[in-house]
């Protein structure tokens, strides 16, 4: 499958509140946001991986200087999450400053903003 259809499919799934990524048929490496070629082995054949949405916070920041279209939401809490099935994704977090720590268990939520579904993460079991 080419890059365009892979990305389209990933985004269609997000709209349906599903997080589905790719697993390389050759080397088994897992990707969340799709890439037309496996970065590890260079092959281009993938099977699908359905993620539970649970993961671990690897690192994060609280971003005060945000691009124009996020102005109303500043500051943005941004984190890099490693999913329990493997693969990483960066996303906004619904978490307060004292809930933020590296290694924190998180889960995915799908938040509708202006008719668009945004993938976010929140502390596991949190509100």
């Amino acid at each position, binding site marked *: 499958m080419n890059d365009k259809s892979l990305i389209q499919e990933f985004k269609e799934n997000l709209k349906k509140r599903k997080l589905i990524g790719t697993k390389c048929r050759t080397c088994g490496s897992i990707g969340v946001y799709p890439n037309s070629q496996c970065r590890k082995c260079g092959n281009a054949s993938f099977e699908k991986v359905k993620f539970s949405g649970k993961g671990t916070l690897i690192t994060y*920041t609280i971003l005060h200087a945000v691009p124009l279209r996020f102005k109303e939401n500043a500051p943005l809490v941004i984190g890099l999450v490693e999913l329990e099935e493997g693969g*990483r994704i960066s996303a*906004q977090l619904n978490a307060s400053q004292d809930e933020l720590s590296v290694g924190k268990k998180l889960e995915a939520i799908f938040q509708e903003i202006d008719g668009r579904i945004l993938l976010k993460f929140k502390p596991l079991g949190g509100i």
Partner: protein
Amino acid sequence: MKVESIFITGVGQTKYGKLEGQSLSSLIYEAASMTLLDASIARSQIDAIVISNLASNRFNDQQNLTALCADVLGLSGTPAFRTGASSASGAAAIQQAVMMVKSGMFDNVLVIGVELMNQVPTDVSTSILANSTHPWEQEQGITIPALAAMCTRLNMIHNGLTREQLALVAVKNHKNALLNPLAHFHHKKVTIEDVMNSPIIADPLRLYDFSPRSDGAAAIIISSGKSVKKFCEQPIRITGIGAATDVFAYMDRENLMSLDATRLAAERALKTAGMTQKEIDILEVHDAFTPLELVNLEDMCFFERGSAGKALEEGITEREGQLPVNVSGGLKAKGHPVGATGIGQVLELTLQLRNEAGKRQVPGVETGLAHAIGGFGNNVFVTILSRT
């Protein structure tokens, strides 16, 4: 392949800063005229132009810089090319010119970088600069400073990097800029407290950890050995070039704590120069954010992992130290007119190697290394110079 017998025969730059009443044309004209004068070369001897710029189409509503540049300089008819590699475009333009001369097709190539960023408000400029990130990152509101902040946090946790060390990078580079009359912050002394008390931009990074938005232009002439013999009294030799790219999105990289493209580009440049780190006398390192100076010095193996901060505390990278880093003031305090930045770094090394750096001259400099980053470690260019 060795680079040998490629020379820098002229350099020139405008002041960096928030410049009133300037246009792309006036900046290009000023930097290029100084460079031609410095090289004592006639306009007619310029065989080609390479221009570097990040986003004139967004900042200034002008995207045809090759035509603009050739025309402004009275060089219409001369071939002109534009090179892009995000914020490393200036360094990419230099390396492209080196290859053009090395190919034998051109003897003297004029390389010009320009950026005029202060014609748009800060938040517009933040959005324009964020266009250098991966599409997914952009959709989440993730900017390059956000990526740098996430990388910094990991270095604080795992490599002993401290908040004070980051502040010290800013203090050192601002101190250096006091001796550089063309620097954006030529008169601004900065203390550790100033940095620590400045507003948070991307936690743990604060306003004073970041380079300013600067206007400015810088230019150099790259010449063949054949051409040098005719007109240049003090040519500086380009002995090594190396470039590399990295996985686009930070989330998809195996290595989250340093920049692999920096390591690769430096290895390649040192290899083409046939040199080791020990033979480099001074460095200009891409310090758009304070952690980059320290992490990249380690990526280029000038210091062991986790020890560049200590070297800074011990004064090793001060102007008077064993290995001066960013004596120009760096992007942090000399300024960061994006398209010009990589060229400005090589200009600083050229002045140092010619013993023409005025009050900030480091004595006895024989070699120098310039390091430029595009995006968050996406495109890296390393260039090595020697006195001939």
